[in-house]
């Protein structure tokens, strides 16, 4: 017990460092995937068939294969197969490759949620905007976007909660995120080795962060309750 209390501050400090990297990946993914998903959804809904087919193909592949494989391919392929290690070395290179993989993967999931949201706004809203002389982009941004956002908050919350936990997959390319930081104490880190509990302890970080995310998204949902 005494040993545990001695180890605890050291472990927590190391896990905090890992958690910062986890949070960075989480926010970068959201920041990239939320707008990219919208572009992809426009692509799949495009009346220009080649574009629609191409984006649907991409969405199919990305959603149809494990994120872990995508991470490995994106991280290793350029260097190993083409001899062009585009990501650069070290932690920043790993972070960059992980960010690209996560953004692409989540953008594809988001795009399908957006598509559902956009298509669920009644056609009468478009028509009302058109007869009032609005442009297509005015109709989208001034009329349909908020109605769509209101409809997609619940399914988006689901994805965002999954993302909190999915960040741990970046461990596979040795990104020094939360799991990596916890696992390090098994083989030895900060003078502690053979300790398995720090890795289990990481679960609390995910749980608490997801608690905060759930509350925030719940507030957003409530905030949009002013209209139907």
């Amino acid at each position, binding site marked *: 017990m005494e040993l545990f209390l001695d180890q605890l501050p050291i472990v927590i400090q190391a896990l905090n460092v890992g958690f910062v990297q986890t949070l960075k990946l989480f926010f970068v993914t959201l920041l990239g995937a939320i707008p990219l998903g919208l572009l992809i959804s426009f692509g799949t809904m495009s009346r220009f068939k080649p574009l629609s087919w191409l984006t649907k193909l991409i969405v199919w592949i990305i959603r149809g294969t494990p994120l872990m494989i995508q991470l490995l391919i994106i991280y290793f392929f350029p260097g190993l197969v083409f001899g062009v290690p585009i990501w650069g070395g070290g932690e920043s290179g790993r972070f960059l490759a992980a960010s690209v993989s996560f953004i692409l993967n989540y953008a594809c999931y988001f795009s399908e949620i957006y598509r559902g949201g956009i298509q669920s706004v*009644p056609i*009468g*809203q478009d*028509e*009302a*905007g*058109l*007869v*009032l*002389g*609005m*442009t297509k982009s*005015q109709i989208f941004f*001034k*009329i349909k976007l*908020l*109605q769509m956002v*209101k409809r997609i908050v619940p399914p988006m919350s689901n994805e965002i909660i999954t993302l909190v936990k999915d960040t741990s997959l970046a461990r596979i390319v040795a990104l020094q995120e939360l799991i990596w930081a916890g696992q390090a104490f098994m083989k030895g880190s900060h003078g502690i080795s053979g300790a398995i509990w720090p890795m289990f302890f990481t679960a609390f970080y995910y749980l608490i962060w997801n608690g905060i995310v759930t509350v925030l998204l719940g507030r957003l949902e409530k905030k949009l309750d*002013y*209209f*139907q």
Partner: protein
Amino acid sequence: MSILQVEHICKSFGNTEVLKDISFSLEQGQVISIIGSSGSGKTTLLRCLNFLERPDGGVIRVKGETLFDAKDPSTLNESAIRKKRLHFGLVFQSFNLFPQYTALENVMLAKELLAKEQPDYKARKNEIHQEIQAQAELLLKQMGLSDRMTNYPHQLSGGQCQRVAIARALALQPDILCFDEPTSALDPELTGEVLKVMKELAEQNTTMVIVTHEMAFARDVANQVIFMDDGRILEQGTPEELFENTREERTRQFLSRFTEG
């Protein structure tokens, strides 16, 4: 000269001919009612006037200007159509109010967006906004909605929603205001309040095209009535001619259902 001239409008969806050679004209300040059974093409005709559907053939002229000519590709340009739509207003059967905006904002939105295209918008931003708001408030007042301006559509009754929608269409001061069965989604109690404001508009000489199933109203308010059947104008004339001296057997058959019921 007529404010609106519609000549030989044809429209098909796939193999179904929905409009067959429709021609009529409308004078400034007059009201035309279009009656007929469901599927006779009334709504499609209104949608063609508002460029929500593109006719396959025919010409639409407003104030002598050719807005649409199926034979002249230069009139079919998408961005030009946006401006041409402004000659017409359209009130929908299902209101189609914007749910995230208050009644007042619903009336103001389109006008504010159009104002942004004015060259002096930046310099006179506040002034323009005040003008638009004052005009919207006045319109809602005319619709009897002074105490409902800050309500959202879901807080309003169907009749109130439809009156907001009428104010919204009027805000852009269209030459011709079109109504697509404006009371069909309302229960009988609420129908009256909407018909009342439409009657007031007619008394103020608003030029209107009204598709309706309210026969008494069509007869009362319209200067001209058109009876459509199977995509054609079967009969048209003054309310007296159409309702009292009905020429066509098909029209008589249609009207009898309303007098008997």
